């Protein structure tokens, strides 16, 4: 159940206030709010802007710049596959295609691309619900998704 808007606004304000003493706290605030609620809503940006004495446009500009920040609710599970060069060298493009086909139609899993997870000697790499895995195959991805679903 989504929580009532007023509760969420109060929580966003509290999370923002916790970071407000740091220099240039906006990214840290956005990380904290997204970690708590899964995504950032327009009302969240307004509350953050108010507490930090920024314009909503400033906050929106930062949210829209960075890939990590999302403005729509996440799916239950998330697979991120590395498409950068070191993983390409060991078949990342084929893996992406196969895994995408394998998970097509699964409404609870989002497949995303990522550029480098720092696991470049053990590629192809990816994350399943944030956990890093190396030497991936499409079968292994499906197996890991089945694990996080259960």
């Amino acid at each position: 159940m989504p929580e009532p808007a007023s509760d969420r606004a109060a929580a966003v304000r509290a999370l923002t206030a916790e970071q407000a003493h740091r220099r240039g706290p906006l990214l840290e605030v956005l990380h904290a709010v997204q970690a708590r609620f899964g995504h950032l809503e327009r009302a969240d940006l307004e509350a953050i802007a108010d507490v930090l004495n920024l314009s909503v446009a400033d906050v929106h500009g930062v949210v829209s710049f960075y890939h990590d920040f999302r403005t729509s609710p996440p799916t239950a599970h998330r697979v991120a596959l590395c498409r950068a060069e070191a993983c390409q060298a060991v078949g990342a493009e084929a893996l992406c295609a196969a895994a995408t086909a394998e998970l097509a139609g699964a409404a609870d899993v989002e497949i995303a691309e990522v550029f480098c997870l720092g696991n470049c000697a053990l590629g192809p790499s990816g994350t399943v619900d944030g956990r890093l895995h190396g030497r991936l195959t499409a079968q292994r991805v499906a197996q890991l998704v089945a694990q996080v679903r259960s």
Partner: protein
Amino acid sequence: MSAPARVLVPADAAARSVGADEVASALAAVLESDRGEVVRTGSRGMLWLEPLVEVETDSGRVGFANVTADSFEAVVDTARSGRAPAGERAAYGGCVGVLDEHPFLARQTRLTTARLGIVDPLDPEDYGRHGGWAGLRAALTMAPAEVVEAVVASGLRGRGGAGFPTGIKWRTVAGAQADQRFLAINVDEGDSGTFADRMLLEGDPFALLEGMVIAGHALGATEGYVYVRSEYPDGIAMLDKAIRTARQSGYLGDNILGSGLRFDVDIRVGAGAYICGEETSMLESIEGRRGEVRAKPPIPALSGLWGRPTLVNNLLTMVAVPTVLAEGPEAYAAHGTARSRGTQVFQLAGNIRQGGLVEVGFGVTLRELVEDFGGGTLSGRPVRAVQVGGPLGAYVPADRLDVPMDYEAMADAGFMLGHGGVVVFDDTVDMARQARFAMEFCAKESCGKCTPCRIGSQRGVETIDRIIGRAADGDDPAAELALLDDLCTTMTKGSLCAMGGLTPMPVRSAVQHFPEDFRPRASRPAPVSGATEGAHR
């Protein structure tokens, strides 16, 4: 029966990605019943052997390669007996013998990575027993200016990729008039094929903190920021714990080691923008803004974070500093080549049999790295190209592998050393596709501030598509190649930073060394993702 020996299992993210946590739990369940101890360390950097479990024995630390959670009897037997498998059982259970004698490690000069995989990353005393804190203690007996001059004398150059002389940068920051100076340490290691920053952050975080405290003393800075990419959650967690421990142990805070020195560190987490590895973009991001590149001048050393003089150094640079102070600048400068002094931490990645971390003096050839250390390709097929220095680095063809790896020799050959990443491709690689990817990546990750980068990369993708005949109007490949070259010149000369400025490097090297791949083709597989349509922002 005596207590079993200590067993060491890496907690490094790469080791965890292939099952190290499961191995550690399984081992702990068995060994703890007979008072054994499983210690989590960093990784030795022999990543193809992970999970690589070590056991302390009579003859030294013995390694067991590719241990799994249901096949580790050899580790338990060795821990209980305290004796390494020998004779005809020498390879028992994946035993690779005493690790320090393994050819992959024995041929390295580990200064920056000396403690990696050896120490408990969060134990400041263990760190001290293995040479840690000696550089800080030495620095605290010296005047700040003497510390700066020691760094100058060491010949240390910025390991982030640009290779700027570190000591000169320190002098500039120290000499700037200001009420406040800052450190900003770049751990936004976004280059594919690089993972040295990550491994050191996870495996030896006190080394970074020690380097930063030394710099704080030398430059009169009291606040340091470490900017870590969000793709490194393990490193962020480890650094956070290390900072707390260092404060409790008197290595950070208001009176460091009783010297009166004040210095503290704050972590800032990136948010998935490659461009934030560019120094001025990183500063914007630390300040809580869009990571758009700043025009230079002013240089960050004079006007960086919040307009104050700011030392921007890469993690590898910072981790080299304690060694310089502990061993003396001459000892450090004794390694390497004429103008590239010291050691470089190379990272072997991609299609390579023995991928991992290789720290050696500058001047090692690319062939030695790929063939001797790396053992050639993982697929067993011939090497066709090696990309050195990340997504903005050149593709080196297989017949040019004898190039020495130092800043000048690489630049003279038309290549770039960068952050030391070495990504190997076998003969199945399509170099036009790699060139297209370089442009595609730039289009996706450009901060958008300058036109040559933002628009040029988009046009680059389209031009390469026409050259290789994916687009309908590809009727004159030669003219299109000339156009691509022209575009590369515009991007190189007209971009604000290295993102747009160096994207042409992989593109041009691919065209120059692999022209056969840039001919029109009848049919061509479409790329997996939807190319650059709807590139973000």
